[in-house]
Every structure is written in C-alpha cells, then in structure tokens.
C-alpha cells in the first residue's frame, strides 16, 4: 500500500483562551480522499480544532496547511471563515445543527451555492432583468440541489421549511447543504448525534460513498463508535487538547493511552475506591 497524499497538515497547533489551553501543540495529517476520525472525551478540544480549521477561531500558534488539489497550497489560519469555505473549499457542519430554519430545504441548498449564483447574477444586475445567463445558472443550481436531495433521500421534503423537520432529517439536510458548497474537505461535527441505529447505518453508507466514489476527504468528529470505527481509515485521539494516539481503528482501539483517557486509570479508581472505603 502506498501512502496517500496529505490534504491537510496541522502543525503544532495551539489555541489558548486566556489561561485555558484548549489545544496544546497538536499535529495531525489528514490524507486526501480518506475518512479521518477525531475522537476524544468531552471537552478534549475537538470542536475547537474544527473552529480553528474553518476560520472561526484564529489559532494562537501553529499552521494549518491545505494542499488544495487544483488551487495550490493555502494556509487556513490566515483566511477568514467565509474564505475557508469559498476559496479553500473546506466546509463544515455543526454539532448543534445550524440550518436556515424558516427557509425551505431547497432554499437552504441554494443559499449554499451563493457565491456561484451571485457571480452569475452580476451582483443582482443580471438577476434583476432576468438575463438568460443568470437564469441558466439558477437552473443549474436547482438541479445540483435536486441531485443531492435525491441522493440523500430528501426530495419529497424539498419545499418544506427546514426548521419544521425531524432532527435526523435536519442532520442530513446540513450535510446536503455542505455538499452543495463543493468541498474538497468536509468536516462533520458529530453527524450521528441524535440519530437512531438505522439512520447511523445510512450515514455510514453515505460517508463511504462520498469518500469512495467522489473522492471527498472527510474529517469526522464523532462519539458514536459504530460510525467512527466502521468508516474511518485513520483515527486521531485527542485528550485535554493533546493528541494521545493516531492510527488505524484497530490500533487505536487497543491503545492503552486511549483506554486510559476514556475509562480512567486503574490506580486512580483503586485510590478512589480506597478513599471511599
């Protein structure tokens, strides 16, 4: 097996909020065209990593180097959040779903194609006069949205307000919306949270399809081990802002450090047991 090209390399990333160090000298490689899982106990700094990666936080130190397949190399820590999505095509979803609730599902997916459409509308001038160029672009955007809706089995809900739909479906809409931005790296923050086992299985299938068939690299934060362990090619484990392990699902599962981070140390438990007794 040849080692895959690195899409994103995180080097010595540190993020401090006042006295609190949320991420401490973290280095991580995200290979192109693979699914990389990020796991760790609550408060380990996983979402902070995503926020640094997508421009919502400016890291205290460290670099986030993206080797974009067509647009060359980019330093994500230097870009504002909208340019991370627009120019670097690194797109994320949120742990607590962030849809546009009063807009319909279709509108959500079309808003995601804003930059393409805005250019086609020549900053609304062509759009105001319904010029053919803009109309063609809009038709294409709708078709593209319809394609993703079809693929994620959401077509029958296209014209319903996104905020009125069940939680599991909203999760799927958020992924569909992110896909409409045309990502090279898709960052999913706990996509399986609140899904039932059947929905989780469907999610697995979708992630494998996106990665396998379309070659989209996926960075996945997830607590649901049935998802992470089954789909990830590569897993990074974070605890207290530090990377404590990295490797294949198999090796991570058996890593003593990881077990310690999740279950606590034996001695500690014994000590506590002794104290209680």
């Amino acid at each position, binding site marked *: 097996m040849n080692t895959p090209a690195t899409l994103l390399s995180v080097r010595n990333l540190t993020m401090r909020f006042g006295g609190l160090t949320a991420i401490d000298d973290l280095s991580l490689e995200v290979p192109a065209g693979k699914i990389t899982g990020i796991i760790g106990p609550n408060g380990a700094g996983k979402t902070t990593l995503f926020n640094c990666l997508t421009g919502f936080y400016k890291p205290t130190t460290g670099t986030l180097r993206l080797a974009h397949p067509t647009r060359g190399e980019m330093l994500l820590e230097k870009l504002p959040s909208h340019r991370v999505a627009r120019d670097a095509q690194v797109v994320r979803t949120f742990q607590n779903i962030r*849809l546009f609730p009063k807009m319909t599902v279709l509108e959500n997916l079309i808003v995601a194609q804003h930059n393409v459409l805005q250019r086609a509308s020549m900053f609304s001038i062509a759009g105001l006069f319904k010029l053919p160029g803009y109309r063609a672009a809009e038709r294409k955007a709708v078709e593209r949205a319809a394609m993703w*809706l079809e693929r994620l089995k959401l077509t029958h809900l296209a014209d319903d307000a996104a905020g009125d739909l069940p939680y599991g479906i909203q999760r799927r809409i958020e992924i569909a919306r*992110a896909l409409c931005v045309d990502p090279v790296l898709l960052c999913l923050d706990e996509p399986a949270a609140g899904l039932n086992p059947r929905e989780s299985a469907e999610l697995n299938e979708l992630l494998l399809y996106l990665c396998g068939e379309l070659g989209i690299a996926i960075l996945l934060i997830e607590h649901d081990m049935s998802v992470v362990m089954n789909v990830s090619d590569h897993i990074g484990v974070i605890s207290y802002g530090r990377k404590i392990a990295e490797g294949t699902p198999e090796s991570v599962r058996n890593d003593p450090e990881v077990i310690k981070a999740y279950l606590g140390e034996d001695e500690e438990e014994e000590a506590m047991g002794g104290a209680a007794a």
Partner: protein
Amino acid sequence: MSAIVFARHAMTPTERLRDAGWVAFVGLILGVPLIGLTTVDVGGRLGVETRFGLLVAAVAAVFAGRLLLRWSIDNMRNRKLARDRVSTATAADRAHGAQRVVNVLGWIALGASIALPIVYSDNRYVVDIATTVLIYVMLGWGLNVVVGLAGLLDLGYVAFYAVGAYSYALLSTQYGWGFWEALPVSGALAASFGILLGYPILRLRGDYLAIVTLGFGEIIRVILVNWTEFSGGPNGISSIPRPSFFGLEFTRSAPEGGHSFASFFGLEFSAMHRLIFLYYLILVLALLTHAFVSRLRKLPVGRAWEALREDEIACKAMGMNTTNIKLSAFAIGAMLGGFAGVFFAARQGFISPESFTFTESAIILAIVVLGGMGSQMGVVLAATLLVLIPEFGRNFAEYRMLLFGAAMVLIMVWKPGGLLSHREPTVRLKPLQRSKPAAAGTEVAQ
C-alpha cells in the same frame, strides 16, 4: 383560586359556571370599594353612601361576561380543533391557500389604490391620508429589507428618510435641481449613509445593533437641528419646489409663453390636480419599490439576506461574505428610505427636523413587525391600519393614542407573527398544485 380563575379550559357547563363565579367574586371584592361605596357632600362634610344596587348589577355583568367569554373562546377552540382534525389539507395546500389570500389582497389593494383618487377626486382629506399611507408603505418596504429580510434591527431608519428629504430640499432650493434629477442622487446619498452606518456595526447583533442605530438616527436629527447654516436648524427649509408633470407646473396661471397643467389639458384649475398627481406619483414609486424588493428577494442577494437573518454563523460556513451582505441590506434599505424622503419633501414643500424624530422610526418599525416580518403585503395592511387608526381616533380626542397602543397590543396578541406571517419560498422544486378536493374525499372514504 388563581388556578380556577385562569383555568385554560372550562369544558363542562358546571366548570364554566364555577369559573364565572370566581371571577364575579373577585369583581365583588374589587367592586365594594370601587363601586359599592361613594363619597358625598353632606352639608359641607364628607359622607359615605352605599350603592349596592349598582354593585350587584356590575357583579352580574362580570359573571355573565365571563361566562360568555369563556364559552365563545372554548367554542372557537373546539371548532378550530375539529377543523384541523377533519381537514385533509397538506402543508402545501395550506401554504397555497395563504399565498392565494395574499395575492387576492394584493390585487384588491392595487385596484382600490388606483381607483381611490377618481372616486374621491374632490375630497382633499381622503387623498391626503391615502398619500400618507403610501409614504409609510414605501418606508415599510424599505425597512423590511433591513429588518424583515436581513434581520438587522434598525431603530434609526428615519435618518435615511431625513437624508433623502434634506438632499432634495437643499439640491432644489440651493442649486435649482428638479425632482427627477434629485431623486436618484438623493437615493444614492441615503445609500451611502446606509453604508456609513453599516461599517461600524458589522459585528453587532440584536439589542446592541438596535441601540447603535437609535443613536445614529438621533445624530442625524441633532445635526439637522444645530447646523443652522447648512440645514436651517429648527426652522427647517421652506418653499421646496413641487414636482411638475413632465414640465407642466400645477399653477393657477400658465407661465409666460407656456402651459400649466390645467391650461395644457384644457381643464379648469383646481388645487386637487396637484394632490392627485402627488398621490399617483407616490403610488408609482411604491409599486416600483415593491417590484424591486420582491425581485431582489428571489435573487442570491435576497436569499443571502434571509439566510443572514436565520443564522449568521452558518452563512459564514457556507462561504458567504456576511460583511457585504449586511452592507448591501443597509444600503438598499437606506436608498428606498431616501426616495421616500425626497417625495416627502416635495409633497410638503417644507421640512424641519421635527418630522424626523424617533417616533417616526418606531412607527415604521411597528409597521414592519405588525405586518409580519418580511411580508410585503403585511406592510401594506399594517401601514394602512397605523395611519387610519389615529385618524378615526380623532373623535376620541385624548384617548386617541391609547386606542392606537391598544390596537397594536391586540394585533400582537392575536397574531404574534404579524398580520401576514406566511412566507412564500423564493424557489420551489415542484410547482404548487392544489390536491383535488375529490381526490382527498376518496382517500378519506377508503
């Protein structure tokens, strides 16, 4: 006790009677000092007299009133529940119905507004009020872009109205510009003020944004009051030229070697001509505004405004430049306010800072909120109501503003989302089709 008094459902007649009994009891306790006892002048001394007959009548009225109220509320609720249960209408059907109501209302309003000056061609008062309504409609549509679509709470909208009005007033009195030349320039000026306001408040949201915009509105007004050499200070600017009808002035006597409006069309001069012309002018401006805003709403920029209202962080994550989106909303909203201001100055012929107080901003905002955020037709309804209620209230003299406030409260209690809160999607995957009643019937039968 309170649990019984404020019980949500008094379903059985006994429950209703008991509920009404409790309310009457409270009425009795309150009524003894308020109604039952009264002071009288007994030979220079203050004496107390009882009015138990009146008290009994009042308590009986409270009892009956409560019973009736409870009964009608329950009845209404039951009927609504029954309708919802029986109804086979899908969400799409309901949306379709709501949209049809809005469309029908729109055509009726358009027809009525075109016919109004013809019907009331000799009633100065009606035409004047209708013109005022249309100014507020236009202002409401402008603010709707900022508040209703982009979700940026702006309490200083009147500032842009003032910028438009003063631009026209100064351009016309100082430089002799005509209405049509000044209109785009004043609009552009107002838009640049919108951007000027937009820049410092890009990071603010909600309450904080509201306070800063409030301050901005006051700054503009205070500048207009104090910068006397520029704006005439509290005295304002007078003898602002009126717009002409394609160069024809609305004057009694035709100018030397030319025509006035009346002489050109061979009509007898009437002061109403100008009023009716002004009415149609603002009607055209308002309709253009409507067409412009409705069109923008369906464009990427309009969808971006709405997305910004819904979730700014998600917008950024989708690669949208929220700075540009906010500034465009402020600029477009301000421009429309500026246009309305130009018309206002041209219609009044005199402007002063007094016309641009915070109350104006509050009324325009109330129009947008009462109408239903983002709803174009709602703005028309709310503007009509908010201008007409104080007018009808003139008979009630000092209770007029009380009536105005009460009406606002009632509307918000009755329709918390505004008069027309239905939101029509900007794009649909499947065009709406009302499912046939017959088909629905067979489904039920099966």
